[in-house]
């Protein structure tokens, strides 16, 4: 707490408040708008922020319930939004779990064990993580196309191929976990070794339980990263029932078939759980991100 306070502090606080509220209006505008649009009647309806004649038709569509319009027509849901959400969650959970397993063991070796090429590996990982996966799409496409000819469940249009191709994103996490492991005192593991524990036992029973916070951060970060990933999924997945949410929702907004209201409901329905997870994990994420940020 600063002890020396300027005299006009009161006015400054109010000025800051007004600026903040104006800014928050700008920031929140898209969210409020989309919630409002999801309750409007029809796909081209315009109007005020609070809908004049609210309707649940878009929500019914998104939840897969056939909807009866005022003139008695039954409208069947166009897209399997809930299937997409499930696909997204399935792929994200599997990927995050695999990334967590691989990067934890990797980070343990980089933080604690001594072996040849360690520093070269760390440096090249740093450079490699900068290459965006979008540029390797041609290779991914060709690779899974050919692999699918031999192992069908790893071919194009399968979720397992998608999960595999996301595994390249683990380098950043290795750095994050490695940094955390290094902050834990080696003495704990050394005393375990004196008592006869193998390195695996020391890792499993001493280091892992101590690192639960960073593991949670890595899990949530990769979960969010995968659920929002769009380019790879759009190339590898083709069938409507196989799509993930990120690829699927785009289909609502084609110029020739512009379903703005249905999109709004789908966006709110699917964006909400992800946002809530993020806000709950936010406190840990902020510390994780800044720790990773400072260490580069």
């Amino acid at each position, binding site marked *: 707490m600063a002890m020396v*306070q300027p005299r006009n*502090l009161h006015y400054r606080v109010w000025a800051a408040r007004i600026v903040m509220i104006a800014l928050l209006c700008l920031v929140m505008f898209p969210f409020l708008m989309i919630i409002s649009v999801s309750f409007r009647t029809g796909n081209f309806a315009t109007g005020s922020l609070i809908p004049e004649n609210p309707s649940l038709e878009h929500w019914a569509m998104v939840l897969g319930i056939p909807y009866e319009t005022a003139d008695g027509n039954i409208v069947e849901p166009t897209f399997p939004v809930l299937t997409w959400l499930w696909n997204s969650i399935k792929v994200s959970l599997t990927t995050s779990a695999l990334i967590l397993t*691989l990067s934890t063991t990797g980070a343990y070796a980089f933080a604690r064990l001594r072996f040849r090429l360690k520093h070269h590996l760390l440096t090249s990982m740093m450079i490699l993580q900068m290459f965006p996966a979008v*540029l*390797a799409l041609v290779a991914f496409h060709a690779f899974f196309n050919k692999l699918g*000819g031999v192992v069908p469940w790893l071919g194009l249009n399968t979720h397992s191929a998608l999960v595999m191709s996301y595994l390249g994103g683990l*380098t950043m996490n290795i750095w994050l976990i490695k940094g955390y492991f290094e902050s834990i005192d080696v003495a704990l593991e050394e005393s375990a070794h004196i008592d006869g524990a193998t390195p695996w036992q020391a890792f499993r029973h001493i280091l892992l339980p101590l690192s639960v916070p960073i593991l949670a951060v890595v899990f949530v970060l990769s979960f969010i990263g995968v659920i929002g990933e769009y380019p790879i999924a759009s190339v590898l997945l083709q069938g409507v029932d196989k799509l993930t949410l990120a690829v699927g*929702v785009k289909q609502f907004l084609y110029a020739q078939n512009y379903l703005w209201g249905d999109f709004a409901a789908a966006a709110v329905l699917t964006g909400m759980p992800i946002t809530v997870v*993020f806000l709950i994990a936010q406190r840990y994420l902020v510390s994780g991100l800044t720790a990773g940020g400072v260490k580069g």
Partner: protein
Amino acid sequence: MTLPANAKSVATGKENGKKNMSTPANAQKLSSGNGPKWALVALIDLALLYVIFLLYAQGEILFPLTLLVLCSIGTWVFTNKAGYCYRYVYPCLLGIIMFIVFPLVYTFSISFTNYGSANILSLERVKEIHLDKQVKTGDQVYRLALYQDNGQYQLQLTDKNDSANVYTSESFTLDGQAKEVAAQPDTSAQGQKLSMRDIVKQRAALGEITVNLHGNSRLVMSSLREFAAMAPQYREEADNVLVDIHTGESIRPDMVTGFYVNVDGEQIAPGFSVYVGGENYQLLLEDKGIREPFFKIFVWTVVFAALSVTLCAIIGLLLANLMQWEPLKERGIYRVLLILPYAVPAFISILIFKGLFNQNFGEINMILEGLFGIEPEWMTNPTFARMMILIVNTWLGYPYMMIVCMGLLKAIPDVLYEASAIDGATPIHNLLFITLPSLAKSMAPILIASFAFNFNNFVLIDLLTAGGPMRPGTSIEAGFTDLLVNFTFRTAFVAGQDFGLASAIATMIFLIVGFISWVNLRATRSSQEY
């Protein structure tokens, strides 16, 4: 691909690579559990070898070779005591090699070929397609009549030259499946003879039928009225040269263009992929219709990334300062609300903006119309489209900068501000002379990483404008808001499907981004030295 964790749990305790810890006393006891480990490794190796063999049998070289190398290294690491330390690293390295390094190498190798939608197959496969081609031989032509009886069909074929020569097929169903039906010399067919109109309706299904004539020759539908005997068009000679059996003309593969050509030099589709050397790179540097858009897109990519980073950093830093300002009591609520754009998945917010910025029924233009009477053409005017992209990207990107800055600001000692307050400094003085100099060093790597991220911000552009509006007068499609990655993606997957050229552009981007990350690494190191 990856050996499961339990393979490691039975690992022996006596390892050579680990010198900083004492050798466990009970290591010998643990090594007795090696049986299951060997079985598991052998099982995984067998499965992988099977896949490798199948891939190799398909005529692939690069994929099975990479798999074989990785598989052997894996076996060594998990069975040899000297490889103990690598057991922890191998799984994650495997992921990196398979999904970062290998695609990189593969992309690089594609950039020297003409691999693309017109030349997608291998030479072997193209040869097979040509050898499978059938032509009407002309000596056996039969008029067809189709009879229907309770969903069952029968074909009656009459020799065009000798109308006494009539064959009738067995009954079959027309379900669009390829099938072979036998026919005997016979004039009696069951059911009702179908008119030409009905035959037209069944044309596609009839095209799948092969009639086996008395065991002598096989006929397929050659026109709406006729079935005719078919024979292969080509036979193979040495050096992949194919000879037309009926005309005697030969066609040979042209290893420069990747097509079979006849004596007149005419190309016969489909093409196969061939090595073209540096042609794709040459095209990028010399073809005016490609070079000019490529260069302009490069400039816009740099401008976009630089502006995005600057805008996000300025707004993020100012907000972070405000969030640390103690007199602002309710700043906890502001913080949660300000982080929201970062919390909502980007693909959703970008699409929301796409709808809001819609020229005809978007809410933003409606508000602008009402307030100022203007309706900017966000989607068709290049300048407005770029403005829109920067607005949306700033909205998406400032929370990250704010979070990072908040963490870094905590590290600046309060006494500095105390001292400046005694000297009567204004907040602007504080920002310029205390906050910024203290942050500069630790912010540098973050700014560079953010630049690299925005340099390749594919999702934003693809979902918001898809690169549009398009630039006029280019030989491959290029848009005013395209970033290099979007340009590459379109060249590869949307327009033209020229994988070779796209890989060449991708390789160029690899080099640029590699340079940026190298600079980043240097910056990180120098900041850590302090």
